Structures are given as C-alpha cells and as structure tokens.
C-alpha cells in the first residue's frame, strides 16, 4: 500500500475575500467542491419534487392534478435535472474535493477554469426550469415536453421550452468538458512523486475514464442538439424526412452520447467503492489491476453499444445481433468489478457504519440493475420491455441505487474529512434503511407494471395497473421524505458534532487520511513522496 511522508503544517496566512465574493471568486478546489456538492443536493430535491408531482398524478387512474402537457414537461425535466444537475455535479464535487488530497496535489491543475466550470451550472439550471415560471405568466407553453431524450420530430414540433433545454444542455456540456479537462490534467501532471499510474487511487482511475468519456461524447450531444436547433429555427432538415433527413439519425447521435453517459454517472462511484469496502473490511482492495482494466474496458465498450436504446426503431438483422452481443459483453468487465468488491469484503474484519451500509446496498441493488440490463440486451425480449415501466425500473436501479446511493456512500464516507465533524450514525443508518425500503417499494412494482404492459411516460393508465401504481407512489413519497434526513444530517454535521481524527475510519488507507480533518486551506503545499 501507499505510504507517504506527511506534511500537514498549519497555514495561518490564507488570503481570500469574505462573504459572497469568496464563493464567486474562489479558485480553491475545496470551496469549489463544496459548491458543486451543495448545488447537487439542492437540485436533487428540485428534481425529486418534480417526480413526486408525477407520482401523485399516477397514484390513481384518471387525470387528477395536471394536464398531460404539464406531466410530459415534468418527466423530461426531472431526468435532465437529476442527470445533469444532481448526479454529475455530485461526482465533480467529489473529484474536486478528493483528487488533490488523494494524489498529493496542492490544488486542481486549472483553478480558474474550475471556478468557471462551476459557475456555469446555476445559469444552466435556471434556463432549464425557467419555462415553468414563464408559463405561469402566460409566456410560452412551459418546459421541454419531449422527455429528456429530445427525440425529433417531437422536439422540432415542441414549444420554446425545447430551445431553453437545448441551450441549458450546451452550457452544462461546456461545464462538464471543462471539469473533465481539469481532472485529466490534474491526474496526469500533479501526482505526488512516486505515484505511478498503477498506484493511482481507484477513485482517480474511475474519474479519469469518466473524463475521457465526457470529452469523447458530449460534443456529439452538443452537435445533435444544435442540429435540432437549426431544424427548429433555420429551415434545415437534418431530422425531417420530407427534406431528406432522418428522425432516427437523431436517436443515433443522442445515444452515442446517452449510453456512455450512464457510465459517466457510474464510473466515479465504481471508483469509490473499493475505497469504502476496503476501509470497513480493514483489508486492501482486491484486484486493483483487474478493476483498472475493467474501467477501461467498460469505457471502450460503452461507446460501441448505443443502438440497444432503440431496437424497436427497426434496423437490419446484423445490426441487431451486433448491438445485442456487444451490450452483453459489458456484463463481463462489470462482473469483474462485482467479483472484486465481494472479494475485498471476503475474510475481512467488517463493521457496518453508514457508508458501508450504503456500499453494500449499492452492490445488491446495482446487481439488480446489471442483471435486468443483461435481459434487456436480448432483442426479442426487449421488444416487450422497451418503452415500458420495466425499463423505467431498470434504469432507476442503475441510476438511483447505482448512482445516487453511490454518491451517498461517498458523502457519508468523506463528510467527516470535509467538516472535521462526525455525522449522526443513528440518523445515517435510519436514512439508509428507509431509503432501501422505500426505493424497492417504489421500483419493484414498476418491473411488474412493465411486464404487464404499461408504457412509460403516460399520465393516465388502464385499470389493471392501478394497484402497483398506488404502491409505487407510496414508496416514492416515503423515499422523497427520507431524503430530508440526509439533508438534515449533513446540515448538522457541517454545523458541529464530535471532532474526528485525520484518519477518520479505523481501516482507512491513502493520502487523504494523512491530512487533518478538515484539511488545511491549501492541501499539499509540499508534495508527499510515495515509496
């Protein structure tokens, strides 16, 4: 394991403005990380409120609360908010906070770019949600109503909410690309002396692959939505068959970005898992190299499987077979990761603090996402699952149980390091059990709804779907309310609580645990040397 010469000297002379200006002008990786994480938490609740409104409408058959137009806006903006404004910023916040600490760097390599990267997010979030407010004043007809996928020609037909969402996606994309450049440059150039690439913490490896995926795929999304914008306003016909275009071209471009996006959301979490599991098993991570190679393999595979998102659009038989088998191939490196996670726990000396609970919950529930993903790859069976609630349940196991519970693992794991205080274990554990229970209560019924034939994105449904929808809605509300515990626990921990040591957890290994909790304003002024 890595050992380091520590240097955690106090630095009394910290020059930065106070109040709001500190946050507007900061170039400090920890301040920026904090801002990313705070923004992410706020948007997590914004996106959550939207979907609770949707679930409330779906509680019973019939239209009770809203018109279908508004329903369509909520589902699409919920997805965009959760993906671009909650999950991605959370992962970037982790990277900002932890990468310099973990690799022995004083800060991120490009601090001003870092600041700008963050401050692009709030305007983008405003752009995304503003049409809701404008519609209240009679301007326009509300937000994007096409689902988060922007499928043409529906998006060509849509109101100005689509334009707002396109511009928001552009800005979010620029922010993510800048964040990615910063992370790649930091990892390549700012590692402590002696830290070779194969001694890099796995979290950094996970993020490195993520950053490359972002740079490879976000420009494609930007191109696709720009073509959409010109189709809408400047008379081009990229996606209009009447002008020689092709609506399916949009789906190819969108999912060329959209599928890697799934791994963009998950790779940072996969990188985090071995740290948490090894800490609470008091045993080094199993299969370091195997995990690194799996990250790389998944990254490469993720850009060649996109068309499995629209098997029902119709494509030639060889294409169907290719995309089916390439998708199934992802199960192999993913299985390597599961194997390594469980092998890390095997024969350890485990304790189950909140981060470990979330990590184990993550593994089990993400396992369901992986296994259902395997059947979804089967073209024949996919004809039944596709566009149904089965898919909705599947990707929420991937992105809530995989993505968001992974982020919660990281928050509980690192919160004491960030704040210098211990959070409430009791509340944390309560939060975990409520989350796992209500998450399954919400989404297990959705698997059955999908099998029974309920299409996704419908505001009203036939009577045979009523009970499962009612259960799902109850689950969703418990899930939503339990997240208040999470926010409350974080709030209390930031405000105070029992002081923690540098090495917060008994079994924690790595440079980040050599620095004080909270770490000094400038992390590693003298770089540690890895032997």
């Amino acid at each position: 394991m890595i050992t380091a010469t520590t240097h955690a000297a106090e630095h009394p002379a910290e020059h930065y403005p106070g109040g709001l200006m500190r946050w507007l002008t900061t170039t400090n990786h920890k301040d920026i990380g904090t801002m990313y994480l705070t923004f992410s938490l706020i948007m997590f609740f914004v996106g959550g409120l939207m979907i609770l409104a949707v679930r409330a409408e779906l509680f019973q058959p019939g239209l009770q609360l809203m018109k279908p137009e508004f329903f369509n806006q909520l589902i699409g903006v919920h997805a965009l908010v959760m993906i671009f404004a909650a999950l991605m910023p959370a992962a970037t916040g982790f990277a900002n906070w932890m990468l310099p600490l973990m690799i022995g760097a004083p800060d991120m390599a490009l601090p001003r770019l870092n600041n700008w990267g963050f401050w692009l997010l709030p305007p983008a979030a405003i752009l995304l949600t503003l049409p809701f407010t404008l519609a209240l004043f009679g301007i326009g007809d509300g937000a994007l109503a096409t689902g988060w996928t922007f499928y043409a020609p529906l998006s060509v037909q849509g109101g100005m909410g689509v334009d707002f969402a396109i511009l928001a996606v552009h800005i979010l994309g620029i922010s993510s690309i800048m964040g990615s450049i910063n992370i790649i440059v930091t990892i390549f150039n700012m590692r402590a002396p002696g830290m070779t690439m194969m001694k890099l913490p796995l979290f950094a490896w996970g993020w490195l692959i993520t950053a490359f995926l972002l740079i490879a795929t976000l420009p494609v999304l930007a191109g696709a939505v720009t073509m959409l914008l010109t189709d809408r306003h400047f008379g081009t016909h990229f996606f209009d068959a009447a002008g020689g275009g092709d609506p399916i071209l949009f789906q190819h471009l969108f999912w060329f970005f959209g599928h890697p996006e799934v791994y963009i959301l998950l790779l940072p979490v996969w990188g985090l898992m071995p740290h948490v599991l090894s800490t609470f098993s008091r045993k080094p991570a199993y299969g370091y190299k195997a995990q690194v190679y799996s990250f790389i393999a998944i990254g490469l595979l993720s850009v060649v499987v996109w068309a499995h998102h629209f098997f029902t659009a119709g494509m030639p038989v060889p294409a169907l077979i290719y995309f089916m088998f390439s998708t199934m191939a992802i199960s192999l490196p993913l299985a390597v990761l599961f194997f390594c996670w469980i092998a890390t726990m095997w024969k350890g000396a485990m304790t189950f603090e909140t981060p470990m609970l979330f990590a184990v919950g993550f593994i089990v529930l993400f396992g369901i996402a992986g296994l259902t993903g395997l059947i979804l790859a089967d073209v024949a069976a996919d004809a039944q699952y596709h566009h149904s609630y089965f898919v909705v349940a599947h990707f929420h196991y991937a992105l809530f149980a995989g993505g968001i519970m992974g982020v919660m693992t990281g928050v509980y794991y690192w919160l004491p390091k960030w704040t210098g205080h211990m959070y409430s274990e009791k509340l944390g554990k309560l939060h975990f059990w409520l989350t796992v229970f209500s998450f399954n209560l919400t989404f297990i019924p959705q698997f059955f709804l999908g099998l029974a034939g309920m299409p996704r994105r419908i505001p009203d449904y036939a009577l045979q779907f009523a009970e499962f929808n009612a259960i799902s809605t109850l689950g969703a509300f418990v899930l939503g309310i339990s997240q208040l515990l999470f926010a409350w626990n974080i709030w209390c921990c930031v405000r105070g609580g029992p002081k923690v040591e540098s090495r917060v957890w008994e079994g924690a290994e790595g440079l980040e645990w050599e620095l004080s909790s909270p770490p000094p304003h400038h992390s590693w002024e003298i770089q540690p040397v890895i032997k």
Partner: protein
Amino acid sequence: MASCTLETQAAKDAKANSVSRLLPRLSPLPALLLPAVASAEYKFNFPEPVTPIARETLHIHNEFMLIITILFVVVFAIMIYSMIRHRKSSGHAPAKFTGPTGALQWFWALIPFAILLFIDFVLMGIPAVQAIINMEDTQTKADMVLKVTGMQWKWQYEYPESGIKFISTLATPRDQISNAEAKGEHYLLEVDKPVVLPVGKKVRVLLTSTDVIHTWWVPQFGVKRDAIPGFLRETWVLIEKPGIYRGQCAELCGKDHGFMPVVVHAVPEPEYLAWVEAQKAEAKAAAGGADRTWSKDELVTEGKAVYEKVCAACHQPDGKGLPPAFPALAGSKIVNGPLLDMNGKVIKDSHVDRVLHGKAGTAMQAFSASLSDVELAAVITYERNSFGNQMGDMIQPAQIKSLR
C-alpha cells in the same frame, strides 16, 4: 376483471384465487384506499401470448429470469455469508490478500467469467439470434398486409389488398378521464373502430407516421415497432386465438400519448371475409356520397362527428384550442377567411389549404391523406359555421375531390 386477456373461466378463477390469497399480504393499504379497483388481479409476468413470437419471447424471458435469479441468489449468498462470518465484532482477523495466488485460486476466480461467457453467448445468445431472425422475417409466407399509420393521437389502418382504410381513436369518454363519471372496464384501452384480423394468417404489418414517432404495441402479440414519419418499418403477427387484444402507443408522441390505444379483433377467417365485404360496401356508399350535392345541414352534422373524432383533441370541443401550441378556431382569421379563390382553387395558407395540406413543423397534419372527400368537406363546413364563426358558406365533397 380488468384484464384484457381471453382466458378460460376456470383458469381465471384459479388465478384469482391464488392472487386473492396473496393480495392482502402484499398491499393492504392501497387496497383499502382503492376499493373500486381492489378486485383487479395482480400480474407478475407477461400477459398470455397469442402469437408464435410472443410465446418465444415469454419463453426467453422466463428462462432469463430464472438464470439471473440464480446468479443473484448465489452471488449475494456468498456476500451475505461473508458479511456474517467476517465481522470485526465476531473477532475475525482481516486477511491481507489482494488478488488470486496460485493456479487453484486463479481457476476459481476465472470460473464465474467462463460461466457468464457461456450464458451470454451460448445459452442465451444462440436462441436470441434465432428469435431475431424469426422476428425480422416479415415476408416469408405472408398472407396479407396491414398498413398502420400513427398520427397525433390516433391510428390509421389500411388493408391495401381490399382497399379498406379507416381511423381508430380512443373511445373512452372525456368524463371518465376527468373522473366525472365511473371508469369502464376497458378504460383507455377501447377504440371506436378496432382493427379486424383473421386468425391463423401471417399478417405483415407496415408502419409509418404522419407527424412524430409513435410505437405500435400489443403486449400479447410480442411485437413492438416504431412508426417513423417518412419511413416504412415492418413487423408481423400470426394470431393463433380469436379474441380482443389491446395495447397502446409506446413512444412519447405529445400531449395525448397516453390516449391512443390499439385494439385488435382477431376473428376466424370466414368472419373476417364477411367483415371485409361489409367494409367495402360501406366505403362504396361513402364514395357515392362524394358525387352528390350535400345540404349545409347534412355537412354540419357529419362535420361535427368528424371534428370531435379527429380535431377536438387539439382544437378542443369548443374550438378554443390550447394556444400557443394549438390555435383556437373560434374567431380564427384563417377559418373566417375566404374559402377558395375566384377560379375555385385553393388559396395558400387559407382554411382549406391548412386542412388539406397541414402546416409544416406543427402538429397540424395534411388531412387529405387520411380523411375522405365527404369528411373533409363536412369538417371544413362545420368549422366555418360553429364556435361563433358565421361564414355561412360551405364546400361540397365533389369540390374537395377536384382539389386533391
């Protein structure tokens, strides 16, 4: 009984019994909250398959579910065993290993991947390839063609061999949707005019759309295929059992995406042939209608029916529309503009032009493709003389015929 399957009564009862035992344990709360629908049965799997493809799909699904359940149980049993045995509190000292050492350990580490490879590419992979080839083989021994056209928010069905063509729209009354009256048994899954198909015949289904992407899906047929504007897609069904099969549009296609069901009546061939003859006779009568002169009252009465079926979803029953996406017809400059120019030709961007040719980039489609001469003449006349519009003029089906 809110199921859309046609099971035998005995099978139904057996299922209902097993379900009623399960039901109270599963969800006492929602069942209490929803007494009206608490009698509906739970479904944990695909509805009963009625085509060869659906049977094959159900088989693949069941097999795959079994495999992943086994994988899930085995993998997490190992993990849970470890979580119980290897705890600090039970005094377990942590091991130090970081990877497989020795041939035996490598062997055990690689076994799971060999199994997974076998499952992916042999056990499931080979049947999957066969299923794909079968599913995509739309042409071999096809007995007939059904052309399906998706439109916001209805389906048009066309039988090219017999020249039958009609539109099928949601039949559930708006009052049921807004909870003003009790919901019927087939709430949201009922149409005014279902597709009729013969049992035991391979039907090649061609799909396209006039506006946005829709997806035609009947779960019991095991097929789901997108209807894409400007392109033809195809699939096939061979229904093995007479019955009424219900499905829905599966691709988000705008505000009434949830309200465009698919209903298929599968009937024995003689019954199907009789239906075809009846349809032809009806079409002939309607075509005859285009050649005679209609009175204004006749047109307005017919036009009201067409309007409510085809136009009201966007422009609303009261003609006030849902601006800005769906403009009002009441008081509209276009509707209250001139009918035709002095030579009896269509004026660009006039009322007749809009109805016949649509407006590009909006939900307003070219209805000349989907409505008959009578329907077009009737609906235009109706719109010009309703919702407070008092143009007083009318257009004859014969005029529409000459304008096409």
